[in-house]
């Protein structure tokens, strides 16, 4: 295993049992289906997908907030899926998460300083409270919440959304993790504040050489922020490559459709949009064959070839730009 990889996810599958009220398992939803990827130290990978694509399940599996059904997750060379109890808790400081909604992810009854210090207390860092306090204040300072002692006394409801997300970043980065999982970190914020948060994440990330898994539904944001993009559809990576390739030369029909509907803050004559009909299917009823064929414009354009219904395409192509489609080259 390459030691420069901060995160290696191999054959990850996450299933949820759909239970009836009596507790019997009625069916299984496969939110993540055999997904593999890795992130090098200091690299940022964007996972892009709509709701139901499994992007949050991947984040939760990495954070061990849900148990993966199959697969291994290795953070900084340590396999974490086999850990439990104390070992698991101790490993957690290496991988930290920033949640989508900063209002929900910060306990409203605790002060900002308490929230940041909580990270240190739980991880057993710092001998005394005074020591931890000093580090927490430094962390608040580093995310631009100044004067730190004053901001530290506030509660979440006394801060704006952007400030709250800064607190969440401080609470994660104070542990100096190897991997940061950011689940839609700016989607709840006003557009004018997004750049500030992203810049902060980028700066702190490069200072500490932290790898980042950046989860978003916004392809243009991924294009701007990430070093690499993986597009998810119904629990599977359908295309993976460099941002310029994904946006400039999308190969999978799903990615092509996503790129075509990106809103552009400029009034220009864009090429024809491809608006997919219908909605992403339920993950307990994944279509046979290629999971996208039920909505695929290419499938219809090619006269509904049997291969799309019969076999599930795997991710293939050059290492720097891979796609999971039987017919992508025929375009």
């Amino acid at each position, binding site marked *: 295993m390459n030691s420069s990889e901060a995160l290696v996810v191999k054959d990850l599958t996450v299933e949820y049992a759909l239970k009836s009220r009596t*507790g019997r398992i009625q069916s299984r939803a496969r939110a993540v289906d055999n997904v593999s990827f890795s992130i090098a130290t200091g690299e940022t990978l964007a996972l892009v997908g709509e709701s139901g694509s499994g992007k949050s399940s991947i984040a939760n599996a990495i954070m061990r907030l849900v148990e993966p059904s199959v697969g291994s997750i290795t953070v900084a060379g340590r396999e974490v899926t086999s850990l439990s109890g104390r070992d698991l*808790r101790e490993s957690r*400081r290496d991988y930290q998460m920033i949640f989508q909604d900063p209002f929900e992810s*910060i*306990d409203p*009854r605790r002060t900002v300083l308490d929230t940041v210090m909580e990270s240190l207390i739980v*991880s057993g860092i710092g001998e005394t409270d005074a020591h931890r306090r000093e580090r927490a204040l430094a962390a608040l300072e580093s995310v631009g919440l100044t004067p730190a002692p004053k901001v530290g006394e506030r509660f979440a409801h006394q801060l704006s959304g952007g400030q709250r997300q800064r607190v969440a970043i401080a609470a994660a980065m104070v542990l100096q993790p190897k991997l940061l999982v950011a689940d839609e970190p700016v989607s709840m914020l006003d557009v004018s504040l997004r750049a500030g948060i992203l810049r902060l994440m980028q700066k702190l990330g490069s200072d500490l050489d932290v790898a980042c898994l950046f989860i978003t539904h916004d392809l243009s944001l991924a294009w701007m922020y990430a070093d690499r993009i993986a597009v998810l559809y119904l629990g599977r990576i359908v295309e993976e490559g460099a941002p310029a390739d994904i946006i400039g030369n999308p190969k999978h029909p799903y990615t092509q459709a996503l790129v075509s509907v990106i809103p552009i803050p400029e009034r220009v004559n864009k090429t024809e949009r491809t608006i997919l009909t219908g909605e992403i299917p339920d993950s307990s009823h994944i279509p046979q064959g290629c999971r996208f064929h039920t909505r695929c414009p290419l499938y219809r354009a090619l006269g509904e070839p049997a291969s799309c219904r019969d076999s599930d395409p795997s991710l293939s192509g050059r290492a720097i730009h891979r796609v999971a489609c039987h017919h992508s080259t025929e375009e």
Partner: protein
Amino acid sequence: MSSPQVLHIPPVKRSMLAQLWNDRMGRVGLLLTTFTLIAAVIGPIIFVFDSGAVGADATTLLMPPTRTHILGTDELGRDVFSQFLSGSRVSLLVGLMATVISTIIGAGVGIAAGFFTGKLDTVLMAVTDFFLVVPAMPLMIAMGAIFGQNLTIIIVIIGLLSWPRTARIVRSQTLSLRERKFVPRARSLGSTNWRIIKVHMIPHVLPLLIANTILVVAGAILSEATLAFIGLGDPNRISWGSMLHFAFASGAVGRGAWWYFMPPGLGILLIVLAFTLVGHAFDKINNPHLGGSS
């Protein structure tokens, strides 16, 4: 709808007591509670009730108020006012002690069921629902008749039969707290379950628990009064409920002896109302929708 609140920095939360005092009903409730507590503690010391001091002849039985007996006498010629004062102690004692038992069980069951979910939740909620549905008063009467009549037993019976509502409320609050993202965030930091409960759950459950606890006190006082009225009070400790039992049994109502059955009833009303008002005000503080203009 978006309002300009986003920009507005609300003032630091005032203490619960200050907020209660600010609410008209809460203030009346607080004053009433304080008043009855003081009366219950000091009253019987000044006006000692002597259960042996029965009336000498027929003229002193069920006597209307006079200068010596400001609330008249009962069917045995005993002073009603001093009975009334010592009765307040029993009502308050039973109400408060039973509530302690009820709250400890209710909060424990509720948090455990809500936080750990799964099988434990199923079992605990089955037990809770059982006691929630079984009619409490017939069961209290049955248990009172079986286990005998003394204050401790009455306290235990009321306490053991009034926790299910608390458990339900605490559980649903705990369940909704679990959905808040700060709980998975705490877990992803490596917090133990116990730490999550201590740091993130209990402080959030507490305001609701306090409001509910105050209402449980009111309910427990009413339960004690009813049990005593049915004839299951502690024969050695006169309470407002047992005063009404004797008033009823001796036909004081039919004989128009209002000085006998009015005071204990009003006493129960005032003290239960006091706690109910405070509890209601707490509810308003906890639920901004109920607090008039939010």
